[in-house]
């Protein structure tokens, strides 16, 4: 017979793990959503730069302002322990993130800095989009190269 106390203890011990598992899933979903929001706004700018979407100054400014707003969010905090690509199949976050937390954070700050001033920089015509996109896209690429699994 297993004493009731032991069951209660086991349950009490299991609860935080369950909660942690849910937290981990939430964190991964949240950062996927975060990246997708970045992507949607980048897509707006890229579409206009390529001429697939007609250039619209207000829309371009808004997309850039959205990116600025997103980079104010503390996204690196969504990369909680135990959510690397080795821990969860749905994660593409390389373990390198947790090995170099400072550099990972710096890569995110680099995006924030690339975004600074972009709502104004995209004004004035389609031709102004290119340089802004290169700066922003370069910051996405640098971080993905080092910290996103793609092999």
């Amino acid at each position, binding site marked *: 017979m297993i004493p009731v106390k032991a069951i209660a203890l086991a349950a009490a011990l299991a609860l935080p793990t369950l909660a942690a598992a849910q937290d981990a899933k939430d964190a991964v979903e949240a950062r996927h959503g975060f990246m997708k929001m970045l992507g949607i706004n*980048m897509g707006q*700018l890229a579409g206009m730069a390529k001429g697939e979407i007609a250039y619209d100054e207000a829309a371009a400014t808004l997309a850039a302002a959205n990116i600025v707003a997103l980079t104010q969010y503390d996204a690196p905090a969504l990369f909680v322990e135990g959510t690397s690509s080795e821990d969860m199949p749905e994660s593409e976050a390389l373990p390198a993130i947790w090995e170099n937390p400072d550099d990972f954070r710096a890569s995110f700050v680099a995006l924030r800095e690339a975004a600074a001033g972009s709502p104004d920089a995209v004004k004035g015509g389609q031709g102004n989009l290119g340089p802004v996109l*290169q700066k922003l896209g370069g910051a996405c*690429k640098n971080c*993905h190269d080092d910290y996103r699994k793609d*092999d």
Partner: protein
Amino acid sequence: MAGGAAHRERIWDPALRVFHWTLAVLVIANWLLGKIGPSDMTLHFWLGYGVIALLVFRLVWGFVGPATARFTRFVRGPRAVVSYAREMIHPHPTYWPGHSPVGALAVVAMLGVLALQVTTGLFADPDDYINVGPLASTVSSETSRMALRWHNRGADLILILVLLHWAVILFYRLWKREDLVRPMIDGWKWVRRR
């Protein structure tokens, strides 16, 4: 294995030689651009298109070019491959008039992997909105993600094949005392008909 004495013969035509050295330069440059190039990959794309043009040329040349360039002539069955591989380990030149049956495997592997590399490149999407493969928008995002994955793995495969290519050429030079590089430059090679 008999045959007369070795004599010099022009086995690689000029177009094939230009093809080879242009391919070597473009592939090395593009590999390095991919790994350590600037985050604006425009040049990588253009050199990649150059490689596509070269591969198309090589495919056509493999059917209509001179004898030594033709796939049907140098791609041989397993018997010929095994028999050549046995001969190949001996420390003397083979004076083979063209790609040997073993070399043919490397040629096909290199051209095949390069074809795969340019194809996956066209469909790859690294989610940075600046270096998106020109055909990525024609497929689903899962497919373009998979293309990127295979483009990255392809880069490793190319590295392995090219290092093997160089190692075997060195093996011929040092162990077998046969210079394969010179013929790829001026077209003339010591050969023995058999």
